[in-house]
C-alpha cells in the first residue's frame, strides 16, 4: 500500500472520528436541562424572548438542531456564542490560541528537555543516590495538583523581590511562573518515560554486541542506547504538543491568562453550546492531526515501522 492510499485512509478515519466526537458532544451538552439564554430571558417580554430563542436556534426540537449544527460544522460554520455577544469560534481561536500556544510551548520546551536530561541521568545512575533523588522528585511533582503548585509559586516566587508579576499576561517576565507551573508535569512524565525506555534498551542484546566491539562507553550510550531509547519518546511528543498548545485551565485561571484552556472550561460551565462544540471539534481535529504526524515521525526514527503495517491495524 502506497503512502497516498495510507494517508487518504487515515484522513477518512479522521472525519468519521470527528463526526462521532461532535455528535457525542452535542447530545451530552444538551442532556442537561435548560439552555444558556434561559436565565437572561426570564424577565423579557415574550416576543423578545421568542426572537432570541429563534436567533440561537433554541426554538427548535433537539433533532432538527442536531442536523443544523452538523451541517454548519461541515461548512466550517461553528455558530456564535450565546453568552458573549460577537464571539465566534474562529475569532476566539485567533485571539486565545496564540497565548495558550506560546505558554504551552515554553512549558514543554523547559519541561521535556529537563525531563529527558533527568531521565538519562537517572537511568545511567540506576540504583544510586542521584537516581533515587530524581525519581522521588518526579513522584513528588506529579503528586502535587497543578492548581496547588501554581498557588505555591505565586506565594513564594512572585512579588517585589524577584520582580515577577503574580498574575497577568504582559511580557516575558509574566510568563516565567506559569511556565514553571506547567513544565513540572512534563518533566516528571518524561524523566520516568526516558528512564524506563533507556533501561529497556540497555537490557537488549544489541547493547552487548556494541560493548563487545571495544567502543567507548560514551559511544555505546549515544549511538546505541539513546537513539533506540528515543523511539517511545517520539510517540508521546506530538501528543504533548497538542495538549500544551490548547492550554491548561488551572494554570491559566490562577495566573489569569487569557488563553484557550480558560475560555474552553468557562464555555462548558455556561453551557455555551456552539462554542463548546466548535472548540471540541477544533481540539479533536488538532489531536488527530498530531496522531497522523506521529505515525510518520515514528517511521523516520525507527526504520522497522512500516506504514503498510500501521495501515492494516
Amino acid at each position, binding site marked *: 500500500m502506497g503512502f497516498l492510499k495510507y494517508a487518504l485512509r487515515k484522513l477518512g478515519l479522521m472525519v468519521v472520528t470527528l463526526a462521532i466526537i461532535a455528535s457525542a458532544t452535542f447530545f451530552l451538552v444538551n442532556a442537561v436541562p435548560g439552555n444558556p439564554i434561559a436565565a437572561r430571558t426570564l424577565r423579557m417580554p415574550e416576543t423578545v424572548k421568542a426572537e432570541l430563542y429563534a436567533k440561537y436556534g433554541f426554538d427548535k426540537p433537539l433533532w432538527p438542531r442536531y442536523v443544523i449544527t452538523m451541517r454548519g460544522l461541515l461548512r466550517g460554520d461553528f455558530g456564535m456564542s450565546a453568552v458573549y455577544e460577537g464571539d465566534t469560534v474562529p475569532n476566539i481561536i485567533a485571539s486565545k490560541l496564540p497565548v495558550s500556544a506560546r505558554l504551552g510551548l515554553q512549558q514543554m520546551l523547559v519541561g521535556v528537555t529537563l525531563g529527558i536530561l533527568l531521565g538519562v541521568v537517572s537511568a545511567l545512575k540506576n540504583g544510586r543516590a542521584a537516581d533515587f533523588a530524581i525519581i522521588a522528585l518526579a513522584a513528588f511533582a506529579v503528586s502535587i495538583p497543578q492548581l496547588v503548585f501554581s498557588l505555591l509559586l505565586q506565594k513564594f516566587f512572585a512579588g517585589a523581590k524577584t520582580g515577577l508579576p503574580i498574575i497577568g499576561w504582559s511580557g516575558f517576565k509574566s510568563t516565567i511562573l506559569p511556565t514553571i507551573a506547567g513544565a513540572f508535569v512534563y518533566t516528571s512524565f518524561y524523566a520516568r518515560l526516558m528512564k524506563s525506555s533507556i533501561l529497556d534498551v540497555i537490557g537488549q542484546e544489541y547493547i552487548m*554486541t556494541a560493548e563487545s566491539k571495544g567502543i567507548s562507553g560514551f559511544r555505546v550510550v549515544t549511538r546505541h542506547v539513546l537513539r533506540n531509547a528515543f523511539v517511545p519518546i517520539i510517540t508521546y511528543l506530538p501528543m504533548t504538543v497538542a495538549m500544551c498548545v490548547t492550554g491548561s485551565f488551572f494554570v491559566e485561571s490562577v495566573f489569569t491568562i487569557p488563553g484557550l484552556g480558560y475560555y474552553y472550561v468557562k464555555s462548558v460551565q455556561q453551557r455555551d453550546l456552539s462554542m463548546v462544540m466548535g472548540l471540541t471539534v477544533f481540539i479533536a481535529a488538532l489531536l488527530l492531526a498530531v496522531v497522523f504526524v506521529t505515525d510518520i515521525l515514528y517511521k523516520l526514527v525507527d526504520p522497522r515501522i512500516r506504514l503498510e503495517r500501521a495501515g492494516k491495524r
Partner: protein
Amino acid sequence: MSDLLEIRRLRVSYHTMAGEIQAVRGVDLSVGENEVVAVVGESGCGKSVTARSILRLVRRPAGDIKSGSEILFRGENVLSFDKKRLRRYRGGECSIVFQDPLSALNPTMRSGRQIEENLRAHSGISAAAARAEAVELLRRVGFDDPARRARQYPHELSGGMRQRVMIAIAFSNRPSLLIADEPTTALDVTIQSRVLELLRELQVETRASIVLITHDLGVVAGIAKRIYVMYAGRIVESGSSEDIFYHTAHPYTKALLASVPRMTMQSKLPLPYIQGVPPELIDPPSGCAFAERCALCMDICRREEPKLTESNGRHSTACWFETLPGTDGGGLL
C-alpha cells in the same frame, strides 16, 4: 605451546530476588591456537554465561564474576584488564557472535555501519576506507550485492543474512578468538549448516580459534576438535570429539547423545529424552548435580561431588561410576 585461552576456576553468580544463582560453579577450560572447541549442554547449564565471561560481558551488579576466577588470554588475565586494554581486546582480539541476530544487531543502524564501527574502533582507518572494507567483508560472508546490503537495516534482511552480518562484524578485525554463542539455534534448519560452514571457512582462513557454544551435539560433530560437556554450572566431561562421541564416559553425555534424533529412527517411536529437570542453582546439591536424573545413581553420588578426573590422555569425566574402583560403567552400557 601455551594455550590461547585458559579459564581457571571460573565462578559466576547472578543476584536475584530469590537469592544468588550460581550459574557457573568452577569451570576450567582451555583453547589452543587455531583450535575449535565446543561447549555443550542444555539451557541454563551456564554455557552462555561462561561465553559472556570471556569478554567480560556479565553485567554488574546483577551478574558477578567471583574473585579467584581467572580468564587468561595469552597469559594475561582478562578479568584484571584496565579499560583501555579491555577495549583493545573486545572486538579486536576476541569477538562474539550471539544466538539471535535480530536482537543482537542494532535495529536503528544500517548493517554496514555496524561493521564499520568495529573496524574504526580498532584502527585509524578513514570513514571511507571503513565503508569499503565493510562492503568487502559482506562480500566475504557471502552476499552477492554487498554494497546494497550495507545500506540496509537488520529488519530488511533475512535471519541467515543477519547472522552473516553478525559474523562479518565479529571477523572484521581478524580476532584470534571467536566466541560463537549458539550461532545457528535461531536460524532455519536449511540455513544452519551454511552458517556453520562459513564459520569453518573463516576459521581456517584467519587461523582464529573458536569457542562454539551449543546445546546441539549434531552441530558440534563436524567442526569441533575438542568438546566440553557442561551440566548445572560445571564441566562434567571433556575430551576430543572422538572421546566424547565414541568413548562416552558420563551418563549425562550418553543421555544427550541418545536424544539426538537420527534419520534411522522409526518415526512412530517417541524421541528419547532425559527425565526430570536440572537442579536449582540457588541451592546446588552437595552431591553430583545429575544424580536425580541418573540411571546409574549410587549412594555416594548424592553425598559427594565427583571431581573431574582424567581417565586417559585429555579425556576427563566427573562421575563416581567411572572413577570408583570396582565399577565400570563403560563396559555395561
